[in-house]
């Protein structure tokens, strides 16, 4: 899938490459942002920032990483920058009440979110992305830039832990 994007970039057809990346990875990047931001509205704004940044740096693509890995790195870094800036703002303003992780969802979903929140960060990321990505270990590994075997082992540990917590 990334090969045609790579070819377009080599031919310096940046607009076409951008459109293809948006089509292929727009939803996935958004899901990653939702998982990191815990807020769909904010995640959509950040997804716009990510693709705007991609549009700006596309001519600088050097072909070392695959376009999708490159895009996920931009996405992850952008989310982390936004999260850091927001946590700084929240720390400086005591009156700002933290938003709930999940709003307007059923009680079961809230319970599940509570169980998930008790998992270590990486396990939570892996399990959430795995189910949001509709079960693709390959995609999750690419998004988090970790080997597929590591994704599997985090997934197994997370499921074992969730099994205990949910009982």
């Amino acid at each position, binding site marked *: 899938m990334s090969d045609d994007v790579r070819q377009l970039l080599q031919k310096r057809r940046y607009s076409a490459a951008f459109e293809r990346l*948006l089509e292929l990875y*727009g*939803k996935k990047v*958004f*899901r990653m942002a*939702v998982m990191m931001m815990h807020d*769909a509205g904010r*995640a*959509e704004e950040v*997804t*716009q920032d990510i*693709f*705007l940044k991609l*549009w*700006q740096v596309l001519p600088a693509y050097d072909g070392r990483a695959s376009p999708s890995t490159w895009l996920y790195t931009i996405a992850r870094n952008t989310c982390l920058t936004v999260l850091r800036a927001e946590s700084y703002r929240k720390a400086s303003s005591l009156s700002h009440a933290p938003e709930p992780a999940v709003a307007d969802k*059923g009680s*079961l*979903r809230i319970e*599940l979110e509570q169980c998930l929140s008790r998992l270590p960060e990486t396990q939570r990321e892996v*399990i*959430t992305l795995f*189910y*949001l*990505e*509709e*079960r693709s*270990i390959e995609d999750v590994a690419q998004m988090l830039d970790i080997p597929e075997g590591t994704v*599997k082992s985090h*997934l*197994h540990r997370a*499921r*074992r832990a*969730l*099994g205990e917590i*949910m*009982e």
Partner: protein
Amino acid sequence: MDCRSVEEAILDSLENAGTTSVQREIDVHLANCPACTTFAARQQRVDAQLSRLLVPPELSPGFRKALRKRIRREAMQLWADSLPEKVHFLSCGFATLMCAVLMPFHPAAVLSAGTAATLVTYLLMTAVRNFFESAEESGQ
């Protein structure tokens, strides 16, 4: 297969269907091991709940339109940012050429003087712009 291997095989089977022989081994083990049977049932419940409750969010229908609008705005901004330089170099180049053609001096001398004047005025323009930008930043 011992209990630990069966547990791993059960967890694996939730990601992708294992081979029939592995499934048979799991079934044989489960028939004689209540602890692993409980584990399998619990893991299936966890998997079902996660599949049911973690619904992939969708981008709003206006996402692409809004993104294109931002990109257009950004492109305009980039063009506008470099506009003073473009206007400066074009107008100085045109004036130098006109002087070289119309003035009663050697064209090479006029072109050299014109190039020097263009560079000096460009440096002055950049210095003035930097001054105003830093004044604006310190005022914020």
